[in-house]
């Protein structure tokens, strides 16, 4: 075993150690040092994630048994293409969100930097784990960090949003455990690869138990991913939290989507025998309705942050539809769209934050107000992010939507997916052009000189926005990557006891 074999654990280990270190005396209460430490560790995570991606593409999936306990009893970390793509995405997002926070928002409350690190640790762990109970543990880590990040800075609205978010997620965690109990009782294992192998030859008397467990897990992941009746917490939570936290939270709904891939595509997927595709029947109507609800909500948005939050619901609905289709092509398209929508919704939150700061009284409400200090710069950022989110060429939203439309290839699927997806683009275009013209053109007075965006904020937005054209320029290798990830997810399960996956 060389150090490179242990690399898989580093995306969890680096933020853990940095987070703990920041709580200790040499770093404690020294803001500049804390900022630099987190920046360094974010860079390190990004490098490790890229190395892992190269490794998983070159050598196929790797399994790391924690403490060298043997599968299927030991806890495994699995690095395949899907996991490492998500790691790279998280690393880029965390880097940008943290840069933005360093412009001053981290001073609003204590312990921002350590909690930020624990948040990253939880997200990375959830992407890497190959054990479903460990998925629960990492969920809890990312949740408890997100609870604290959410109320960072305090304030009435934030506390109220946090109460809803925390109580809902605590109930969700309990259901997660109920689901896990049923699944363990039915499968006798918690290793996800082992479960997907056993699903097809399950004892008939355990089938119903496994089904109920699987669907309970769908409720939990649906709560995270903003599936229709469970999405009402999202707009308020995202709109009222501080800007960098909202940007980082753009990945949180995607953790739910990712877990549905891991559980309902890989375990209860097409090779599940009697358990095959149990989620599809629910995801079809609920996914379409989520998209519909997102379209209505986005048209009714009153502030730019609320608008960005409602766009997250639209992207969640779109992704849930690709999950419902549950074909390899749809999964690949969904992954491309997921990367694009995470980066651009985060960018939109950051832009909304800058607008909010520069318009003083009017904040980010979509009403006539005073001019913002840098109308050209922020205006063009807004324009690029909007084009991407609507799905207009030449940005990544266009490619993502085309891929999804292509994967809805049966007549029935197309008749539902095409109109809704296209209408969602239209709705986004309507509201974003209204928002843009109100914020940047319907202004009173010339642009003031004070209160300019700091270079850190601009860099953060540029990093996120630059990904969009890059995703188009490198579209061919990226779609190859997503297809590879989808192929691994849809492969025939192999018995784990015979060694590797």
């Amino acid at each position, binding site marked *: 075993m060389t150090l490179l074999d242990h690399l898989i654990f580093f995306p969890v280990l680096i933020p853990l150690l940095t987070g703990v270190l920041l709580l200790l005396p040499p770093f404690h209460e020294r803001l500049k040092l804390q900022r630099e430490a987190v920046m360094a560790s974010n860079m390190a995570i990004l490098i490790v994630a890229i190395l892992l991606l190269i490794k998983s593409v070159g050598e196929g999936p790797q399994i790391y048994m924690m403490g060298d306990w043997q599968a299927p009893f030991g806890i495994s970390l699995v690095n395949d293409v899907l996991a490492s793509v998500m790691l790279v995405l998280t690393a880029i997002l965390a880097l940008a969100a943290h840069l933005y926070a360093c412009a001053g928002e981290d001073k609003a409350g204590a312990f921002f930097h350590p909690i930020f690190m624990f948040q990253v640790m939880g997200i990375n762990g959830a992407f890497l784990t190959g054990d479903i109970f460990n998925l629960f543990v990492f969920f809890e880590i990312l949740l408890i960090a997100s609870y604290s990040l959410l*109320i960072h800075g305090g304030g*009435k609205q934030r506390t*109220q949003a946090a*109460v809803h978010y*925390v109580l809902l997620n605590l109930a969700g965690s*309990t259901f997660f455990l*109920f689901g896990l109990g049923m699944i363990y009782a039915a499968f006798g294992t918690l290793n996800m690869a082992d479960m997907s192998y056993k699903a097809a030859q399950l004892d008939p008397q355990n089938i119903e138990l496994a089904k109920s467990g699987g669907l309970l897990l769908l409720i939990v992941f649906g709560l995270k991913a903003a599936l229709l009746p469970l999405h009402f917490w999202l707009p308020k939570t995202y709109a009222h939290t501080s800007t960098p936290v909202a940007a980082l939270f753009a990945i949180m709904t995607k953790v739910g989507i990712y877990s549905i891939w891991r559980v309902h595509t890989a375990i209860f997927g097409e090779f599940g025998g009697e358990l095959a595709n149990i989620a599809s029947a629910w995801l079809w109507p609920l996914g379409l309705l989520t998209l519909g609800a997102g379209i209505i909500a986005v048209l009714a948005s009153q502030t730019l942050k609320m608008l960005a939050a409602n766009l997250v619901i639209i992207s969640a609905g779109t992704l849930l539809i690709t999950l419902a289709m549950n074909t390899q092509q749809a999964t690949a398209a969904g992954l491309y769209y997921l990367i694009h929508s995470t980066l651009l919704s985060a960018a939109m939150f950051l832009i909304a934050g800058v607008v909010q700061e520069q318009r003083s009284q009017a904040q980010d409400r979509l009403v006539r107000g005073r001019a913002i200090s840098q109308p050209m710069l922020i205006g063009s950022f807004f324009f690029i992010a909007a084009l991407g989110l609507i799905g207009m060429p030449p940005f990544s939203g266009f490619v993502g939507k085309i891929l999804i439309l292509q994967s809805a290839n049966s007549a029935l699927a197309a008749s539902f997916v095409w109109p809704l997806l296209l209408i969602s683009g239209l709705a986004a275009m309507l509201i974003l052009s209204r928002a843009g013209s109100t914020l940047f053109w319907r202004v009173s007075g010339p642009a003031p000189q004070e209160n300019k965006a700091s270079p850190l904020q601009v860099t953060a937005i540029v990093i996120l926005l630059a990904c969009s054209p890059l995703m188009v320029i490198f579209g061919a290798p990226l779609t190859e990557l997503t297809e590879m990830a989808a192929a691994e997810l849809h492969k025939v399960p192999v018995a784990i006891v015979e060694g590797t996956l």
Partner: protein
Amino acid sequence: MEILYAICVGAITTGGIFLILRGYTFAVVLGLTLLSYAVNLFLFASGRLVINGAAILGESETYADPLPQALVLTAIVIGFAMTAFALILALRARSDLANDQVDGKTEIHDDLPNKVGDNRQGGTNK
């Protein structure tokens, strides 16, 4: 024994769900605590109930599945931390929003005995 156990877990779960559907943070936190008790018992049973069986090989003739016991231990620790957090947050919300209603609204005190509207701190949610 299975039936008795199942009824007990079911009763606790029912109580928990009833309480989390109430509109006041204190009741909801109590409900979550009850639910986490229920889920711990439920997890414990997921390895099937065994009488007189240690979770260690060779100590007794039959042995119990040790994995659910490890899971319950983890779940207890996590549930404890989460409940503590929820309690503190509920207290914070009580002082920030000047009432303990989950939506922060004062007018929904319909089932409390003649409570005077919370306007001591002049909240905006009247």
